[in-house]
């Protein structure tokens, strides 16, 4: 199967949804609403100047209509309905009659991906053993081309192995549950300098995965101190979900994280497009909100909006891009870069 396939076309998917939604009958307006929500903001128009809705609702010439739906007393139904003639027992018939008009099945490529999912380290932290075993059994015959042995990740960070894997996995599950239930937790933590923090109260906001080091961390809102924090999952201990009411829910905690940690002033870079500097630059900063424009003369300006906790990484990334990327503002960051470069040169003069 191709990855780029018409059955995954947005309008194919929309047609699929409309037919199944119409199992119990839908009015024209209800169908129009489904189409409005599902189609492109700029609607597609057929070669006969008719809209997708016209085709679906059979409003074109007779031989142009889809006729996948049929109208009865102002309601639209799938034109072929489930025949009430199951050959099995009564329960088979009832089951058959409860089926949607169109079955939902994973495509070949999706099954290949699911099979790869089961091989992934960490998946058992999310799936229970029963679920995992059932899926493994159902997908046993799938021959997937998505295998770890065909890939090698480079420019990664190899962190020391986690010593107590069981405790780490238990922590992961507990934190995920707390996030799903939107409940705060109490926990103890030990930081890298050996400082111990006991019985802290925090609302877990999300679990963060870093592709460079393959680690999961937890983003939380520390209710004791009203500030967002990021913690290593394996350094937490004695975590328990608690019923204590906080003033902050998960959405508010997220908003506060974005607001408190987002820099008010963007970093403005001037990039000279030599030695693929621009491509490297854009690739490095692809996950940051930005705007860019040409300054002429093979020079470009990029404005990066960034989170304050990313500043050190950002400075290192900018320096790593070399002489063709220069910070225009803020001056504070340009000065920091100049200071580091001067220090680097001084190392060669000893």
């Amino acid at each position, binding site marked *: 199967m191709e990855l780029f396939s018409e059955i995954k076309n947005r309008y194919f998917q929309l047609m699929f949804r409309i037919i199944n939604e119409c199992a119990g009958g839908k009015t024209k307006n209800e169908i129009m609403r489904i189409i409005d929500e599902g189609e492109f903001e700029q609607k597609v128009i057929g070669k006969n100047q008719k809209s997708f809705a016209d085709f679906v609702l059979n409003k074109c010439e007779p031989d142009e209509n889809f006729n996948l739906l049929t109208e009865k007393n102002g309601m639209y139904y799938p034109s072929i309905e489930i025949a009430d003639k199951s050959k099995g027992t009564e329960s088979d018939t009832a089951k058959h009659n409860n089926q949607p008009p169109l079955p939902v099945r994973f495509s070949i490529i999706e099954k290949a991906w699911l099979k790869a999912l089961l091989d992934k380290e960490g998946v058992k932290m999310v799936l229970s053993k029963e679920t995992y075993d059932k899926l493994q059994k159902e997908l046993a015959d799938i021959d997937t081309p998505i295998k770890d042995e065909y890939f090698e990740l480079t420019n990664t960070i190899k962190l020391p192995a986690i010593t107590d894997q069981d405790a780490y996995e238990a922590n992961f599950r507990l934190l995920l549950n707390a996030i799903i239930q939107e409940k705060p937790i109490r926990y103890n933590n030990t930081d890298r300098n050996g400082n111990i923090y006991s019985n802290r109260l925090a609302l877990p906001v999300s679990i963060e995965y870093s592709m460079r080091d393959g680690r999961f961390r937890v983003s939380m809102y520390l209710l004791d101190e009203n500030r967002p924090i990021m913690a290593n999952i394996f350094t937490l201990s004695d975590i328990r979900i608690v019923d204590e009411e906080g003033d902050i829910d998960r959405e508010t905690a997220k908003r506060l994280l974005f607001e408190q940690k987002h820099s008010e002033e963007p970093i403005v870079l001037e990039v000279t497009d030599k030695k693929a500097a621009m491509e490297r630059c854009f690739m490095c900063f692809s996950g940051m909100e930005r705007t*860019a424009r040409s300054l002429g003369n093979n020079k470009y300006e990029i404005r990066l909006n960034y989170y304050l906790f990313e500043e050190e990484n950002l400075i290192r990334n900018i320096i790593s891009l070399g002489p063709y990327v220069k910070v225009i503002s803020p001056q504070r960051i340009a000065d920091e870069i100049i200071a580091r470069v001067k220090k680097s040169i001084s190392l060669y003069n000893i």
Partner: protein
Amino acid sequence: MFNDFIKHYNIIRDILRDCFLYGCYSRDGLESKRNVSSRKVSYEMRRIQQYVEEKYIKVDKDGRYKLLNLTYDFMRHSDNFLVSTYMTKSFTRADLLTYFFILLYIQSQNCPCCLSDIEDGLAQGGYLSYDKISSKTIERKLSEMCTSFGMLSCEVVKRTKFYSIAPDILKTLDNNELVELLIAIGLFKNIIFPVVSGYFCEQTLKDYMHFERNVSGIDNHYFNYRNVHFHPAIEEQVLWEILKAIHLRQKVKLFYHLPKKWDNACEQHSSNVLIPYKIRYDVRHGRFYLVSFNSNKNCIVSRLDRIECIEILEDTFQREDYDELYDKQMCCSWSSVSLEGRNEPEKVKLEVVIDEKTEGYIVEKILNESPNGILNKIEDGRYHITIEVNDSGELIPWIRGYAGYVRVLESKKLADKILDDWKEMLSSYGVV
């Protein structure tokens, strides 16, 4: 039947990449940079605007020019919006009608159906007429739905093919177990390549829960990601074809798309016959490479964004024959440079100077980031790290990132290059 869709993903691939990665080109700017016609640029930009959710498109003005910029914030957006560009393949009226009528009919019958059952059933109901859609077309679609899409399964009884709905692999899972699976897919859809198929999986599962189990509105946005780029999705059509070839042990021919500045005709350049061995993914930049071997067992590394398409050949190979060769060629590569043409890897020696009390983590970080680095403590605050690498040029950006802490001891050539870069940087800031 709608002009808004495209037959091949390649039609938008380059422009999408330039728009998404750069965002600084106006229609005319892109025309001169990439040397494609301004009509095509403007046409495809309009398509991309249609395909991608509006909230990800920033439109800026640069004088009289309009700048399109696709941008996201890794903290706020954990769904890869480029996946929607894969939901745009064109289809004909016959494609749509045969697909849905066949599925509707077989599902309605609840028993295996042969071609004539389906044809007669659809003709009797007046859904499809023979003069518009031929028997051959229906047969072709049935075969596609079995072998290519996987929606149907087929059993041959006395030389007649009987089609039924493909088995439901989720039937043994209860609703809570489906929610678990949805959460697992929600996490890994951005991690397992090709991510596009992970997103498709997620949508199918949501549809399954809604239509087959009457379960809706389950959220699975509990994760966010760092160092997960969205732009590599643009290369996943090519990636998928390569993975199939690697898996089937079939040789390939690559067709490169080179910018016009290197090729006046802008034609596709085909490679010789290659043995596709492994995909390397540079996590830092979000770039895929294919490592392959030619008939002389020379190592060829190709960027996927430069591959227009691949041809999978009938000719096969034994993967094991290349295991050792790959290790030798790539074990000391930091990203994509093979050992090809060199006898052995280069030795790079760095001196790391830190404040022992407060900056010990710097040494730790450097070591964690250098796959085969060997650490030697000279004295408090001074360490030597020795690294073997195919090409020391690959290390330069990384070494620069540790400005102020690292001095290159070996090789002299690398030390000079880095020192020159530092001086050039200072001069660019107007510091002499």
